[in-house]
């Protein structure tokens, strides 16, 4: 297996973990916070809202400008 394939496989595994965590968080009585709850918690503070805006802005800059 080439190093490139190993790299991609790593990201695929992380994606699988992400979906597993989302599924786990949506189960009844789950002790894992849902993604939406987490984002809401971050957005409650002014600093959190501004940080999310800059993170979103940076992603756009990175994808479409640089």
């Amino acid at each position, binding site marked *: 297996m080439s190093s490139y394939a190993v*790299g991609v496989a790593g990201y695929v595994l992380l994606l699988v973990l992400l979906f597993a965590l989302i599924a786990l968080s949506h189960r009844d009585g789950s002790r894992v916070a849902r993604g939406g709850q*987490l984002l809401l918690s971050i957005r409650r503070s002014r600093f959190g809202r501004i940080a999310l805006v800059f993170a979103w802005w940076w992603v756009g800059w990175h994808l479409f400008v640089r």
Partner: protein
Amino acid sequence: MTRVRRRQLLIAAALLAAAIWAWFGSGVRTFTRPAEVLTFVPGLVVLVLTLRPSAELHRPPKTALRRTSALPWVGLAGLILVWELTELFSQPRAGHPTMSSISNALLSTRVTRFLGYLVWLAVGWMLVRDLGRRHE
């Protein structure tokens, strides 16, 4: 014109404007001034809307969020960071993909770039759409 109808027209106009902006934003070459402007302006608009004094989040929590419930997400973010840095600092660079190189490949056509830009604009709108509005 009724209020509902006026609101529908406003939404349609906003969607059309976003699509046109995304079409141009996704069509310019990277590392150019037009690319910078077309990405900077939406960011500035979202930032200004977020910085308004009235831009508070008025949504009551359905249940209190325990800090330990966020730990799995922190763990996953840590794993992603470790993997990304491992790939970034591995040699040869061409043999080790990063999220950046993968996204470049995914956004290499005009259509995928347009859709990606549209998604990016949609996320920006979601960051500000409920600020200042009171929820029951």
